[in-house]
């Protein structure tokens, strides 16, 4: 079976805005969502830079039992999913009568775990953790909570693949629908944003320390980049078969046409050009497209010296002739980690719908590898028929997705 897989709903909760309209404006104007968290400095962080993400107010929207199990990232995911289901025209009465699945990327719930352990150490009594702690603490906190809240009856699990988690979640959802195993799947990625979550990452000196200029600190591909900035939130996409979307009268926003993946089989944290090239080529083969067919690449580029160098080299190895426009929206968002692979599909579809490429802000001077790419320094008016989005994670997990403007 080879079903067409379309996207009928989008939702976003990020440092660029709390809904699609706010995020569209931020992307178009090149607005940074980065700021300082002084609590991190008090905790001994090398860098206090972070994406500034609003906390959703759920009292009055969700009842106590539903709220109490939601971790921070699951709250973001709930808000993003609510928006996505609304614009996909999927109401609760329809969902309860149909087999809707959920595949979501998430790879930590450090705040919930840390606070629970602090309570146990202090109180010497596990009962005093309350009933919600376990549902907040497990890695599958997003899928276990949202499947309950939205009464989902299809596939239901979490994808943990470091900073490629959200991308692989969409890729797996695409394959399940393409192969006829499911008709409708809620896909996405979520990332907590708090001092518990990023201490060990900060300890690797991976973060930018350009603290005097927070909005200039994330500068993917720029030769003066000095590290990434952690960020987060959640992004949701509703994937479904073309037939299902037509049957429901749902708006078709775009089509997923290619998924490539690979593992580097190499170093645990260093990038690997060969692994990335294999992922890119596999996605193109799956989509039956040539490099010249790709109008825009949303790069993984996080603003680390080694990572950006490897990705620029990999992109150039595959796209050196056609040189499509490239930008890393992480220049505005920071690195949304487990969420990034999903949010960057949402950002790119917003660009596709509105005929522009968002700028790779702070790209002032290229290095030897990024000089070979066609990087959008400013917002560029552009008709996008096909885009590709890269996500790469620790352990050498690579994912590339290709999305096409929907045509009957």
């Amino acid at each position, binding site marked *: 079976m080879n079903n067409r897989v379309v996207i009928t709903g989008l939702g976003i909760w990020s440092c660029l805005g709390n809904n699609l309209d706010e995020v569209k404006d931020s992307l178009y104007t090149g607005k940074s969502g980065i700021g300082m968290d002084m609590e991190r400095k008090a905790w001994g962080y090398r860098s206090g830079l972070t994406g500034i993400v609003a906390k959703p107010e759920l009292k009055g929207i969700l*009842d*106590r*039992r539903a709220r*109490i199990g939601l971790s921070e990232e699951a709250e973001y995911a709930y808000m993003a999913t609510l928006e996505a289901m609304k614009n996909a025209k999927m109401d609760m009465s329809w969902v309860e009568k149909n087999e809707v699945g959920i595949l979501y990327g998430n790879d930590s719930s450090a705040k919930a775990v840390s606070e629970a352990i602090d309570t146990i150490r202090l109180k010497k*009594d596990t*009962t*005093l*953790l*309350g*009933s*919600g702690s376990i549902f907040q603490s497990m890695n599958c906190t997003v899928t276990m909570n949202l499947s309950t809240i939205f009464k989902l009856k299809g596939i239901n699990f979490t994808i943990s693949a470091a900073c490629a988690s959200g991308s692989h979640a969409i890729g797996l959802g695409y394959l399940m629908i393409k192969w006829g195993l499911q008709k409708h799947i809620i896909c996405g990625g979520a990332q907590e944003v708090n001092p518990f979550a990023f201490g060990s990452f900060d300890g690797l000196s991976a973060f930018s320390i350009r603290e005097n200029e927070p909005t200039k600190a994330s500068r993917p591909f720029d030769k003066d980049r000095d590290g990434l900035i952690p960020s987060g939130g959640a992004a949701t996409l509703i994937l479904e078969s073309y037939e299902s979307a037509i049957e429901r009268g749902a708006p078709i926003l775009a089509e997923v046409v290619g998924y490539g993946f690979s593992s580097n089989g190499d170093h645990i944290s260093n990038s690997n050009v060969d692994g990335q090239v294999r992922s890119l080529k596999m996605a193109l083969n799956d989509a039956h497209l040539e490099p010249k067919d790709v109008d825009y690449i949303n790069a993984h580029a996080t603003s680390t010296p080694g990572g950006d160098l490897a990705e620029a080299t990999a992109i150039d190895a595959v796209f050196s002739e056609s040189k499509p426009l490239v930008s890393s929206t992480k220049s505005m968002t920071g690195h949304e980690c487990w969420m990034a692979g999903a949010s960057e599909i949402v950002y790119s579809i917003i660009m596709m719908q509105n005929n522009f490429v968002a700028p790779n802000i702070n790209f002032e001077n290229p290095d030897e590898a990024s000089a070979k790419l066609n990087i959008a320094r400013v917002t560029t008016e552009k008709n996008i028929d096909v885009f590709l989005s890269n996500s790469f994670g620790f352990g050498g997990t690579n994912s590339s997705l290709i999305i096409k403007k929907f045509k009957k």
Partner: protein
Amino acid sequence: MTQAEIIERINHFLVDEFEVDADKIKPDANLRETLGLDSLDYVDLVVIIESNFGFKVVAEDFINISTFQNFYDYVNRKVSEKATV
């Protein structure tokens, strides 16, 4: 802490945390049915009692609590015992 203060504090957290309508809280009303408590909610009741009154409820104690009045009396007794100690 007087019994009236204890009742006021209990009613406050039941309305605030358990989101029950204040007018449904009556001394002779059934606690479990009025609050819609399931097994998980009892764990949260233990937490909230501990944080408000400083003592730990053991599960067996709930067996003899059916009405709000039973609940007030139970908490009052435990608070008094704690004060005596």
